[in-house]
């Protein structure tokens, strides 16, 4: 960086390092920049039409060596050795296999040790690294921002664009600092931080921005926990969320299959250490949150911004001043089958889902296992545990976590997106209520008529024991299983 340059934010640094061609013009009428893409992740759902587009136009995939595919959205989490029962799902998976073969794309198929949710696989292979641009036809691509990468979801037309050109035409994002200072209380996790952020700024609050999570509470988080936060940036309307890389980041990457080695490692780390917002860099907006005040969080409504502390009561329409908010509350309560004023902790759940690109990594599984170990599951609750990747599943089994879940009465499944969006058979029934570690509580998200409450793995585990929304601290007086 030259001494003349004004201080830059992290997002601006990564952006400017990827400008292939600056857009012409000034101000509002400035054309988009052409931005180079370092890594393109593919999965079966949003790629078939893009491959078809390439084929129809007679275009090549420009950089197969910067592209990787995995099967995750449609894949079953049971009987993975048998042909996929759902014909349309099977066709979509087979289409991905055929396309990857035709265009020379590396694919990790169901049954492969590296198969799994695309946002778990990238980091785990060491392909996600600081300062990169990462895209995928999936909005939760923001996950990779935990490494200080600029990572965001794109639509299928853009997937095709990246396939053909390894670049995207984009207007610069605005930047927002999310400052979280302080120390989390025991039982409070990064999931609670991000749910609190979304409740604070709203589902549209981040629109047009890249969020940068900063402050002592963020610095103290592990990479798994940072990924949980960046993952849900999109739920605040932001396309991307970032955290400046530090020793925690480098430590995570070192030794992974695609991590730089030898001299490359030294060169990479030297570059990565420059990746932070400069002193005096101006953000377009700033938000402050005190980690000391946070409690376990839970959503009550049908968008991720409709969340409260677990110790609070379900809000009533009268609690909202704005007429549209009142109506939204009324509608959400109706769909969720809830009455305003009910304590969250009195609400019974039918299903607990531990999984998704938000919370399906080793740390998440370990956290839940610690809570349930030696305890008994509420007999009326079904609990499904879906590791984020085949690799996570193997690691968890090596630690004996699978046995902890099985002894507890939970179902130990194979890797995939599973009940987060119910494209495979893992779905809620009409009216069923779920404590879910996933990212979206939209109407019907986990199955037609299903009711989703977003929670952390710790709350999910405690809830599976008591049958009502609970945090681990509610368990202290509970008798242990004999």
């Amino acid at each position, binding site marked *: 960086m030259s001494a003349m340059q004004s201080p830059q934010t992290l997002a601006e640094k990564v952006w400017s390092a990827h400008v*292939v061609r600056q857009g012409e013009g000034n101000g509002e009428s400035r054309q988009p920049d052409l931005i180079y893409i370092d890594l393109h992740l593919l999965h079966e759902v949003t790629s078939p039409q893009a491959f078809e587009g390439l084929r129809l136009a007679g275009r090549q995939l420009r950089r197969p060596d910067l592209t990787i595919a995995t099967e995750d959205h449609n894949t079953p989490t049971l009987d993975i050795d048998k042909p996929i029962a759902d014909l349309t799902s099977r066709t979509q998976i087979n289409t991905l296999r055929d396309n990857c073969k035709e265009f020379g794309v590396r694919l990790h198929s169901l049954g492969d040790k590296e198969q799994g949710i695309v946002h778990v696989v990238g980091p785990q292979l060491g392909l996600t690294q600081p300062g990169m641009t990462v895209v995928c036809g999936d909005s939760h691509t923001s996950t990779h921002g935990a490494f200080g990468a600029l990572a965001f979801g794109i639509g299928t037309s853009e997937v095709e664009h990246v396939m053909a*050109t390894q670049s995207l035409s984009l207007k610069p994002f605005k930047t927002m600092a999310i400052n979280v200072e302080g120390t989390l209380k025991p039982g409070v996790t990064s999931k609670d931080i991000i749910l609190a952020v979304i409740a604070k700024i709203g*589902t549209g609050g981040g629109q047009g921005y890249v969020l940068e999570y900063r402050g002592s509470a963020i610095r103290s988080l592990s990479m798994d926990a940072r990924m949980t936060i960046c993952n849900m940036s*999109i739920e605040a309307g932001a396309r991307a969320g970032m955290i400046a890389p530090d020793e925690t980041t480098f430590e995570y990457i070192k030794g992974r299959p695609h991590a730089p080695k030898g001299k490359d490692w030294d060169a*990479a780390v030297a570059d990565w250490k420059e990746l932070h917002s400069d002193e005096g860099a101006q953000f377009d907006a700033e938000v402050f949150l005190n980690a000391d005040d946070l409690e376990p969080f839970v959503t009550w409504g049908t968008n991720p911004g409709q969340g409260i502390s677990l110790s609070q009561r379900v809000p009533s329409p009268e609690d909202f001043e704005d007429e549209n908010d009142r109506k939204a509350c009324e509608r959400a309560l109706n769909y969720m089958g809830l009455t305003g004023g009910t304590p969250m902790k009195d609400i019974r759940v039918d299903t607990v889902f531990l999984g998704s690109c938000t919370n399906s990594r080793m740390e998440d599984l370990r956290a839940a296992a610690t809570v349930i170990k030696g305890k008994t599951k509420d007999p009326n609750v079904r609990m499904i545990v879906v590791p984020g990747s085949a690799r996570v599943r193997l690691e968890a089994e090596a630690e004996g976590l699978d046995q902890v879940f099985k002894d507890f009465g939970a179902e130990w499944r194979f890797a995939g997106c599973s009940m987060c969006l119910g494209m495979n058979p893992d779905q809620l029934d009409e009216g069923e209520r779920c404590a879910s570690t996933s990212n979206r509580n939209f109407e019907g998200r986990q199955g037609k008529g299903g009711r989703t409450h977003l929670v952390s793995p710790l709350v999910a585990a405690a809830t599976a024991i008591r049958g009502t929304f609970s945090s681990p601290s509610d368990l202290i007086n509970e008798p242990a299983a004999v």
Partner: protein
Amino acid sequence: MEKIITHTGIGVPLRQSNVDTDQIIPAVYLKRITRTGFEDALFAGWRRDEYFILNQEPFNTGSVLVAGPDFGTGSSREHAVWALKDYGFKAVISARFADIFRGNSGKQGLVAAEVAQSDIELIWKELENNPGTTVTVDLESRTVQCGSISAPFQIDDYTRWRLMEGLDDIGLTLQHEEDITAYEAKRPGHKPKTLPAQTAG
């Protein structure tokens, strides 16, 4: 992409905020591998309710959707845009669009016109009081017209230009292929490649 400069069609008032793409098209419809034929999937969950606006005449033949703020949030699925287009919508009006949805619309020739919520309230009233009233969305003047209501809308210059010229994005970018090649030549050597595949064994 087909050029679009102005469109006039029956306006459909959707008095709801935070219409996420899971509502626009539920995940179960995303298993298809085609780019067309999604009209049945549009708002599939809500269309089961006989009182839903698209189950009412003349709104079922509408082509301009007038929705509450934060339209198109959540999943990046471009299928949401395909479903709206396949059903017959040419434009969506909202006070605020999710970024990815807005981008996808621009690529597919669906106009995402950002109109102030106060104007949307007026348009909603007009459409509800006089069902079948048309809405004109004019890219040239960047205005929407509904009955006696005329309101400006926001759309970025580049998207507007591409819509009005019906230009294909990939074709535009490939005009600068030399720049891409030049950029690739100076990328740091330590950046990872997916091939040859490395795994933890």
